[in-house]
């Protein structure tokens, strides 16, 4: 058994930077590279793509990511784990094999499926958000259970170079290699909790290294244009040291690590994953060297009985329109425009929202009493039942050119389909993960 395993966090969301991941793979001396590419709504959008074309439904940047990383991970013998299979891990595995064939790099890909529970869904089950039954959210287009690390173990045991999944709890993508390498059992709750803390720290990649942290003059982070992505050296007990590649931008400090440890945690004493209930309250973060933070002390309790399911439904179309005002009485003219639009649109839409960007759009009001913008941008949004109906919003804003207050400029209009997400719980017994292998090497190819 190895003393320690190095895990890298190579993506924090589907659109994350490719160059930083390639640099981490090339110079990070990694054992595993994990790419977290699947936000809640991303998988519902992917499911819609798959409905239109059964060969799609995986991350739209998957091919680009694999082309960039495959030569490096093959040369350096790094195993790649990612949820970039999104709504179609099997098609993703095929796509990865095609890239490998094109690049003449032997490959074994393991696709983990079973998270798609749309057919097993009980529409009478309550949603976690409001308690209302799932049937009140229609039409439902996707339902994906959060699989845990155990679902990835057969894939890792198969020796696959790349493990591609759909919905898996983000930290579990990191816990799985640790269970595999160190032989952790599913009831070793403290080890699993420590691994979960490490996974949670790495899962947003750059956010551990000063990304989404910087505030000039207050929280200085160097060279953010070349922000490095993080890694962790994890030992067989789950104790870890965080770090990043020398010469990359960014910084890892107790402060950056604390922000990331607590990020999106609704209960620091009971962070729920399919693997464990983790208590982060006793975690100690210690700086051992520049850009090196030791992580210890997470504690575990029994994992939840049920698995969380993320359910996507079609929530209509959102129409938006914007127009800008500047100079003397900019806010007054924008408010007049808002009043005109409210009169024309109220009643036509169930839900209408009007904001002054530059003034009150983010918090509804200004917390700073001296606030007085030189320019302000009016933004109107409403939900329609069809794209055509939603389009009225932008058209009405545009009509302010010839019918509205003086000096309005720079109109923009948008219509977007909206996918809503609600959550429910499902019995573990109703979720059946499985693994499918795809391989390619030049010798086996039939010419």
């Amino acid at each position: 058994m190895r003393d320690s395993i190095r895990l890298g966090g190579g993506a924090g969301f589907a659109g994350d930077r490719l160059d930083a991941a390639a640099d981490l793979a090339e110079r990070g001396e990694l054992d595993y590279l994990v790419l977290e590419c699947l936000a809640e709504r991303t998988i519902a959008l992917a499911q819609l793509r798959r409905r239109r074309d059964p060969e799609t439904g995986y991350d739209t940047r998957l091919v680009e990511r694999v082309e960039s990383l495959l030569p490096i991970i093959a040369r350096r013998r790094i195993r790649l784990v990612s949820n970039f299979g999104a709504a179609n891990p099997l098609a993703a595995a095929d796509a990865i094999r095609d890239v490998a064939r094109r690049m003449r790099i032997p490959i074994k890909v393991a696709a983990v499926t079973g998270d798609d529970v749309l057919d097993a869904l009980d529409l009478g089950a309550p949603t976690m958000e409001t308690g209302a039954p799932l049937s009140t959210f229609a039409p439902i287009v996707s339902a994906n259970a959060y699989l845990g690390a155990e679902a990835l173990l057969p894939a890792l045991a198969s020796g696959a170079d790349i493990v591609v999944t759909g919905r898996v709890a983000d930290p579990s993508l990191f816990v799985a290699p640790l269970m595999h390498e160190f032989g952790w059992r599913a009831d070793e709750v403290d080890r699993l909790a420590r691994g979960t803390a490490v996974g949670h720290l790495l899962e947003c990649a750059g956010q551990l290294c000063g990304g989404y942290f910087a505030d000039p003059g207050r929280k200085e982070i160097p060279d953010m244009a070349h922000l490095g992505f993080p890694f962790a050296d994890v030992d067989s007990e789950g104790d870890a040291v965080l770090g990043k590649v020398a010469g990359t931008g960014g910084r890892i400090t107790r402060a950056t690590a604390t922000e990331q440890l607590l990020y999106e945690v609704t209960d620091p004493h009971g962070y729920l994953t399919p693997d464990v209930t983790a208590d982060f309250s006793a975690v100690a973060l210690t700086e051992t060297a520049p850009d090196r933070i030791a992580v210890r002390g997470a504690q575990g309790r029994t994992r939840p009985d049920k698995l969380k399911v993320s359910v996507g439904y079609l929530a209509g179309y959102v129409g938006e329109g914007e127009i800008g005002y500047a100079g003397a009485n900019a806010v007054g003219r924008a408010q007049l425009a808002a009043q005109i639009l409210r009169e024309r649109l109220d009643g036509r839409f169930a839900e209408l929202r009007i904001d002054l960007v530059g003034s009150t759009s983010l918090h509804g009001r200004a917390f700073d009493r001296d606030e007085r913008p030189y320019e302000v941008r009016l933004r109107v949004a409403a939900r329609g039942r069809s794209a055509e109906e939603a389009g009225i919003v932008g058209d009405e804003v545009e009509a302010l050119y010839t019918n509205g207050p003086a000096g309005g400029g720079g109109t923009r209009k948008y219509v977007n389909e909206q996918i809503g997400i609600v959550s429910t719980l499902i019995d573990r017994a109703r979720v059946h993960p499985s693994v499918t292998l795809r391989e390619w090497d030049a010798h086996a190819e039939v010419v």
Partner: protein
Amino acid sequence: MPKLYDLAHCRAGDKGNTSILSVIAYRPEDYAMLADKLTVSAVGAHLRGIVQGDIRRYELPQLSALQFVCEHSLNGGVTTSLALDAHGKSLSFALLELEI
């Protein structure tokens, strides 16, 4: 009057219609004072109009941090909100405007 911005940093996260605000003291010695002043009611009053539900506060002295879990704070939820910042990611800096 000093603002929370001068004493602590903050990051906002989201889960559904819940906003999670982490407040972390720059200096560990300020933690006790912040824990004293940043009560649930002080934060609720400061974020009136934004937080529409209950606030739970978790004390994390080991991390010099307070975690505020604010329900019904994201206009119905990240995925269906009409707000420009549907995730409420900028709410961290609304909280940091609080005068201490």
